[in-house]
């Protein structure tokens, strides 16, 4: 999902850059205020940790392999502000040292993978935790949240590509969302396994992460998710309807279009033409997404049950026999 340079035009790069600077700035300010100074080294180490975790390959069928994105993992382990800083740092280092993801596209990449994915993962996780409690509940929430975070981040990525005129929304949306509905499965599985492993060895590490968040964490979670859903609707809805150039329309209603035309040195060469018949691909993707979400939820539920049961049986034999 790392967008290289050259794929986004100036208006998209600038707009997403603005969003990212605001988001990361807020996270930094919150961290300065709420995170104790003894946790600052942990944020740096966690960034290195996510970076290394992303480098590990998980074998998938026929010689291919997948790897972790880690936004939800970071959010669950560290809380949202710290996780945004962690994911942004990972992306900055990847862009500057490894040329993985562009420099001008850094704003968009941070926006998708460090802000949207993190907040979305954290919000869904927290909301599900209201309904599902205990070890199994946590794993269900983690699995579903990481799948959603991956897919939603990829939809934003598709939106940016389309807005830049790099690809048609009708192509980018089904392609990106489709691919990430699959890779999201891996993301969910890995995140669940990792959280299960951590809660087996050091359960207290999962308990005290909320220190970074003020007490009203739950309502904040709702706000995050609501904001992201609104964003998604703005992105998806106009395209799902037969109206052409939906994103452009949203843009113009928000005033971005105006800005873009004001600066003629920053051209967006290809206009976003909708081909007839393409909107149905978009609609099909949305339907697939909804069905996929339900299926993933059911799968997370089953998998969490298996993991939680293993955990229990793993704990039992090692616990000392009752000594009266």
């Amino acid at each position, binding site marked *: 999902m*790392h967008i290289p*340079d050259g794929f986004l035009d100036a208006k998209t790069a600038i707009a997403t850059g603005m969003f990212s600077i605001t988001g*990361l700035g807020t996270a*930094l300010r919150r961290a300065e205020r709420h995170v104790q*100074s003894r946790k600052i080294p942990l944020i740096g180490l*966690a*960034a290195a940790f996510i970076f*290394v975790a992303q480098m590990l390959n998980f074998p998938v069928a026929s010689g291919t392999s997948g790897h972790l994105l880690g936004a939800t993992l970071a959010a669950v382990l560290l809380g949202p502000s710290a996780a945004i800083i962690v994911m942004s740092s990972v992306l900055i280092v990847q862009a500057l040292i490894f040329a993985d993801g*562009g420099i001008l596209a850094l704003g968009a990449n941070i926006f998708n993978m460090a802000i949207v994915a993190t907040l979305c993962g954290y919000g869904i996780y927290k909301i599900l935790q209201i309904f599902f409690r205990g070890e199994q509940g946590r794993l269900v929430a983690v699995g579903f949240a990481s799948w959603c975070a991956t897919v939603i981040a990829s939809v934003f990525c598709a939106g940016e590509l389309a807005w830049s005129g790099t690809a048609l929304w009708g192509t980018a949306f089904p392609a990106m969302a489709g691919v990430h509905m699959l890779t999201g499965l891996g993301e969910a599985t890995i995140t669940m396994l990792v959280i299960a492993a951590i809660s087996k060895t050091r359960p207290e590490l999962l308990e005290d992460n909320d220190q970074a968040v003020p007490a009203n964490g739950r309502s904040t979670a709702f706000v995050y998710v609501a904001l992201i859903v609104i964003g998604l609707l703005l992105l998806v809805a106009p395209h799902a309807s037969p109206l052409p150039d939906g994103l452009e329309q949203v843009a113009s209603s928000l005033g971005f279009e105006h800005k873009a035309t004001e600066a003629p040195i920053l051209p967006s060469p290809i206009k976003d033409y909708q081909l007839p018949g393409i909107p149905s691909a978009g609609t099909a993707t949305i339907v697939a997404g909804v069905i996929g979400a339900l299926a993933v939820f059911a799968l997370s539920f089953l998998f969490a049950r298996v993991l939680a049961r293993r955990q229990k049986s793993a704990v039992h034999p090692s616990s000392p026999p009752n000594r009266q």
Partner: protein
Amino acid sequence: MRHDFLDRYSRLDSPIHRLPTTAKLLSTLCVISATVTLHFTHAWFFIIVAGVLLILSALTTIPWRFLFGRLMVLEPFALGIAVMALFQENGVFVFLSILTKSTLCLFTVILLSNTAPFAEILLSLKRFGVPKLLITILALMYRYLFVLIDETERLNRARSSRTFSNSPIRKWHTMASLIGQLFVRSTERAERIYAAMSARGWK
């Protein structure tokens, strides 16, 4: 194990390496901005950029094999996304435009990252007014990246020496618990680093 493969050439001594990092950072930004925003019909510009980049890389004395090797590793990702551009009117033109632009930008960043040490890039960023907290975290992250890679390698080796099954399910399990263990160790190390920082008067 040593990990200089990640930034092996950033400390060479060449005319380009000796330039101030801030200048290199700014010119990288300029080149990339111009490349991204200029319309593809201005072919002359892209040819000039390519030429300049090639001359610069010759001056850096970094082996060509390494530079193009990096490029080849990164190009497939760009290609994967660029393919989506083909499905539209004028698709081939857009495809070529994107591919050219992204290749040039990739090469520019590869040159930057191999001629400027990250520590100095951080100092420049600090001078540009990037928040101090972010700089601290980036510096810590970069420093401990190498330590964690070492640690992962050791954990992995210890595991494989005692793993006798090849099933992918087992593999996923072991990989995940390796990641879990890595996190636990990172938190413990973070505690010790905090102690070391306080011992020298931090905060």
